[in-house]
């Protein structure tokens, strides 16, 4: 009984990584950086990921952040600091790139 419960209520990084990678792949794919399309890509990545995550049906609140960066030789650093319950909550970050775009998606899951 305890085993079943713990499977339902822990943050599984691998599953979420796969979901996010697929979402970014389908949304951007091989396209190059286009300023007009960025807004649309951002919204669709974030919204699609969120809807896939909620379909998992776990008792979690999710926060998905997405950063899209043009490849230009510039540097970028992301850091996050979280105050939560380490046994039940978790985060995962997926980095994806193609020839002209970097995409960084972070997912934070907080147990209810």
């Amino acid at each position: 009984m305890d085993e079943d419960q713990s499977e339902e209520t822990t943050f599984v990084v691998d599953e979420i990584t796969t979901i996010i990678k697929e979402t970014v792949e389908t949304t951007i794919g091989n396209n190059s950086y286009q300023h007009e399309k960025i807004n649309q890509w951002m919204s669709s990545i974030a919204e699609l990921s969120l809807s896939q995550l909620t379909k998992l049906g776990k008792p979690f609140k999710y926060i998905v952040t997405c950063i899209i960066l043009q490849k230009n030789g510039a540097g970028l650093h992301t850091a996050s600091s979280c105050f939560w319950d380490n046994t039940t909550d978790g985060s995962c970050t997926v980095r994806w790139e193609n020839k002209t775009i970097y995409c960084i998606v972070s997912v934070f899951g907080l147990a209810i």
Partner: protein
Amino acid sequence: MKPSCYDNVGKAVKRKCETTIAQKRDISLMDTGANTYLIRPNYKDKFKAGVAKECIGEILREQLYGVQYDPEEVPTLSRSLADSIKHKLKDMAFDRYKFIVQVVIGEQRGEGVKMAARCFWDADTDNYAQEIYMNDSLFCVAAAFAVYYY
């Protein structure tokens, strides 16, 4: 006993683009969290986004004023910014709230950057605050999310 479920490792993507995640082992909130059976905070105890935004802005201006983008130092700088913002939010004593602070620092080279967030949470109790700071050589975006622990 719920098992600890994951490892998070920061890796370099290319030499110029790096992502790191620092996690704090803070469970003191949950230790004191005896059941209160409250499903939402009192109006007075709600997370105040305006106040948090000002605090974040102050911290960013203080720590980033006149700083140049340096690939060696920026990872430590972004981690320390995230930690200071989180400590400040904890000090503001929002009871029973979990915090997530994300800080992004990038070099100013005229490239196009876009950042967005979507959240699946309880809009009555949870909220977020964000602030942007720019100078000649770098830009910095800080976002703080506050989630109520029922």
